[in-house]
């Protein structure tokens, strides 16, 4: 099912007397989530991701704006009538019920004609349990399960009633690093098998990038950019998005555009045809550096970290905002690193210019 948000705003009344103005958790959201996709809602803590999810689930009502599932306006529908499945960050499994009863719980709520017989319920429960591969643990209590297993039970419970939209709030944040990798693949598999439109909230950009069809990057209650992960990474609309995506993070420099050339300090490092003369913030992806003895950008070499396939050259530059510049260079070039200085040439497609005041992207022609 398609999910459409139209100018959705959510304000919370302020609790503090010193700052009586409302807190705007979600500010004028407009976006459309296509049917059957896996969407990552990405942003730093407190940017309104979970609020957005609660608005879609119906647990919270928007202050203004409308929410549609396909063409149905669901803005005023209570959560139970929206047909959404919600997985909570802490899973919220009922501790006194077994796995089987936990998964069956939503089915037992059906009333009237929708009411299911015991056999049908059992069958559906087993089906959902098989999908998330916990059918061997049906008689256990949640406290007897590992974090990853609890997570699966929570997903099964959300899926068992075949929701039109599946919402997950930080689904992987309570798992250890290894389990997280495994579970996110699972999540992808389950989503592709069920074809249910799935929206998950995360603050981990790697997680969002790796499994999403589309990511929505948020900051301070405002949508920054929507698009397929690779596109958002390759073509960020502003400094925030560029900084938020990518590990190691993007390297940010103070620079200036003069007569079609980008200067960092006194060095003209790149031709930037089409950009107007002005001081700029320069973002260079770690993979945007090329080691060259006559390269235009000179940095003070700190150390070289060998990672097998690649090497990471760590250096410093007085105009760089990061404490250290990290550049990822393929390992074949290692021999040319040495001495107190290191010189780089830059790949134009990996260099982004931003306005100094607003952080907005300044585009230039890349051949």
């Amino acid at each position, binding site marked *: 099912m398609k999910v459409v948000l139209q100018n959705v705003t959510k304000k919370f009344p302020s609790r503090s007397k010193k700052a009586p103005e409302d807190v705007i958790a979600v500010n004028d959201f407009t976006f459309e989530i296509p049917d059957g996709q896996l969407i990552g809602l990405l942003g730093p803590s407190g940017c309104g991701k979970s609020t957005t999810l609660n608005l879609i689930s119906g647990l919270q009502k928007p202050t203004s704006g409308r929410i549609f599932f396909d063409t149905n306006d669901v803005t005023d529908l209570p959560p139970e009538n929206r047909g959404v499945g919600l997985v909570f960050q802490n899973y919220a499994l009922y501790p*006194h019920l077994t796995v089987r009863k936990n998964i069956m719980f939503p089915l037992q709520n059906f009333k009237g004609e929708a009411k299911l017989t015991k056999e049908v319920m059992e069958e559906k429960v087993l089906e959902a349990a098989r999908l998330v591969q916990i059918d061997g643990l049906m008689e256990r209590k949640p406290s007897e399960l590992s974090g990853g297993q609890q997570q699966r039970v929570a997903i099964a419970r959300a899926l068992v009633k075949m929701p039109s939209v599946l919402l997950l709030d930080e689904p992987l944040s309570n798992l250890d690093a290894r389990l997280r990798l495994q579970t996110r693949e699972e999540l992808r598999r389950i989503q592709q098998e069920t074809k249910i439109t799935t929206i998950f909230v995360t603050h981990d950009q790697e997680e969002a990038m790796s499994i999403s069809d589309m990511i929505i990057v948020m900051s301070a209650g405002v949508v920054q950019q929507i698009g397929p992960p690779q596109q958002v990474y390759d073509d960020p609309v502003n400094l925030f998005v560029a900084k938020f995506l990518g590990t190691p993070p993007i390297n940010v420099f103070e620079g200036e555009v003069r007569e079609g050339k980008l200067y960092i300090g006194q060095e003209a490092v790149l031709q930037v045809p089409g950009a107007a003369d002005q001081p700029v913030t320069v973002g260079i992806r770690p993979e945007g550096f090329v080691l060259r003895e006559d390269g235009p950008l000179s940095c003070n070499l700190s150390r070289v970290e060998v990672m097998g396939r690649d090497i990471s050259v760590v250096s410093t530059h007085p105009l760089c905002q990061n404490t250290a510049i990290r550049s990822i260079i393929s390992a074949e070039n290692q021999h040319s690193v040495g001495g107190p200085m290191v010189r780089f040439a830059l790949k134009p497609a990996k260099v982004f210019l931003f306005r100094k005041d607003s952080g907005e992207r300044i585009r230039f022609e890349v051949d």
Partner: protein
Amino acid sequence: MEQNNYKGWLYLLPAIAFLGVFMVYPLVDVFVYSFEEGYNSASQTFFGTGLYNYAYVLHDPYFLQAVKNTLILVAITVPVSTGLALLISVGLSSIQKLKDLFQTVYFLPYVTNTLAVGLVFMILFKKTPYTDGLVNLIIGLFGGKSIDFIDGPYWAKMFVLCFYTVWVVMPFKILILTSALASVNQDYYNAARVDGTSKLRIFGRITLPMISPMIFYLVITGFIGAFKAYSDAVAIFGTNLNAAEMNTIVGYVYDMLYGDSGGYPSYASAAAIILFAIVLTITCINLMISKRSVHY
């Protein structure tokens, strides 16, 4: 570990000494007295040993009356007070406005003096040559006949005692239950809401199981407290409880020790041991049931 065992005992010594002197020794002592016939605490003498004290107590109509009263009191007040407290707590946790005010009001009986409140209850219920009392006035409004609740029929007196006991024990139960309700993670309710669970089902299938440990705690302590009731009856009916047919087991023990007919520590000990046995049995049964029905 093994060699250092004495150190652990050394650390425990103060606590063990206190418990031993002030709890275990008196208990054992009472147990011994209960088998000594005609024990006199002043001269420290007794005639012989045996089950005579128990036989006497169990055939004493006053004691049987006290047991009957206590059992009725327990059977009525524990379920009623716990049930009412649960209702009120659920109500309190679902309102927004004036919540603090109501919470304070419901807690007030806990900090008021039992005897003073007993006096007020007596005035409310008592029928004198001059006035019928407020309660009888209300009964009269609905066309009923006035009853003397303090000096009248047995059931009326028992009603006042139960009413009063419930009123006294409720605040504590409400306090415990409101905090238990508040500590249930809101996500469980949200999860249930998203799945379209009805309010009644949420209460029965989620809220109740979640706070069941606290409910059982209240039932167990409620049983123990009700079995040990005494001051409530004195507050309403005065010290001559046997004459009022409103004595409790603890009241009987007290009378046997210090009352007008008192001075029989042996009988008092036997009665106390019988009470101890009853409370122990009920508490064990309670614990067994709670183990089976509290699931986490």
